[in-house]
């Protein structure tokens, strides 16, 4: 089925959800609330039932460990006949490609989203299974996610790629997200979860920074993207300490206020639908 663009923030579908779609979205959210998969947090948009905000926390023992990866999802009016559109917002404003399958534009390449070849979407999928599929892209050796790369092109590529991801995870998806450098409008409930999770992972963050300090000043190369970055763990350590002091002192609210909403306001729906989405929590 042809898909008119993958980007939920530029989706132009108007109109309202079918009865099945709105009841399915609520059920899908309830499933996650009642039995939360580890490292996966979602909240429905306050104003638009079609929009879901999700944070995937990078899994332990992966280069994404403890990172906050913020996704915006938008369900089509006939959900679950068609899949939601998904965008990763944590990209350092379009500068970092966190995975061979997740571009710096935020596009997620996944067959069930219709953005890649392979088994297509089925209405038996739901929000939790979709987010778990995305979480599984953020694995121990993301280099080999790239189709066709069964072997490293140059020996050590996979290790070097992990070093790059680990640094960018700390820089962009931990420090950058906690400081809200890119001025994303992340819902309060998800911010609270980030604050708590930050403290839980703090010792790991510091350990990673200290263990890699010797790389400072060297150039990291992303084989999948053109950008080159310098390692700067010393600076990251200082930022981590500052953020921790703020979170501990309960003076942490994003350092920067969001500059705009993630999703076009015109598309936001009537108050009636807003009420529907607020009943999800009760």
């Amino acid at each position: 089925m042809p898909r008119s663009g993958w980007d939920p923030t530029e989706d132009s579908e108007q109109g309202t959800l079918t009865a099945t779609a709105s009841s399915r979205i609520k059920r899908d959210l309830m499933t996650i609330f009642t039995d939360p998969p580890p490292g996966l947090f979602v909240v429905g948009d306050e104003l638009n039932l079609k929009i879901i905000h999700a944070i995937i926390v990078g899994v332990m023992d992966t280069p994404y460990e403890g990172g906050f990866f913020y996704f915006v999802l938008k369900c089509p009016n006939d959900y679950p006949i068609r899949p939601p559109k998904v965008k990763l917002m944590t990209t350092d404003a379009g500068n970092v490609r966190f995975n061979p399958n997740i571009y710096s534009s935020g596009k997620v390449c996944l067959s069930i989203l219709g953005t890649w070849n392979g088994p297509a979407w089925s209405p038996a999928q739901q929000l939790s299974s979709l987010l778990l599929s995305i979480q599984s892209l953020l694995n121990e050796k993301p280099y080999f996610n790239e189709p066709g790369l069964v072997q490293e092109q140059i020996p050590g590529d996979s290790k070097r790629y992990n070093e790059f991801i680990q640094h960018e995870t700390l820089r962009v998806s931990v420090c950058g997200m906690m400081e809200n450098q890119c001025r994303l409008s992340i819902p309060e409930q998800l911010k609270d979860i980030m604050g708590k999770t930050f403290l839980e992972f703090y010792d790991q963050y510091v350990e990673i920074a200290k263990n890699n300090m010797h790389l400072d000043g060297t150039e990291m190369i992303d084989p999948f993207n053109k950008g080159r970055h310098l390692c700067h763990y010393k600076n990251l350590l200082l930022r981590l300490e500052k953020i921790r002091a703020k979170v501990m002192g309960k003076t942490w609210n994003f350092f920067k206020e969001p500059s705009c909403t993630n999703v076009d306001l015109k598309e936001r729906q009537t108050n009636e639908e807003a009420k529907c989405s607020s009943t999800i929590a009760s």
Partner: protein
Amino acid sequence: MKVTIKNWVGVATWRWVANDDNCGICRMPFDGCCPDCKLPGDDCPLVWGQCSHCFHMHCIVKWLQSQQVNQQCPMCRQEWKFNNK
């Protein structure tokens, strides 16, 4: 003791005999109806595929209509054929 029944009122219940509790498309209980209907029963029937998976008729028809080629069961991805037995 002798008992004489003077009057009685029969009450019957019914339920669908499906191999699952919920429709895999709308995720509503089979004993209810699909979200587009108001009352369960003959107006919102269940249908089975030859793969043995079962859905609200309204739900599976919407899914099949959206698939021009390769009409597959949402659960097992086998080619969908109605089981008319």
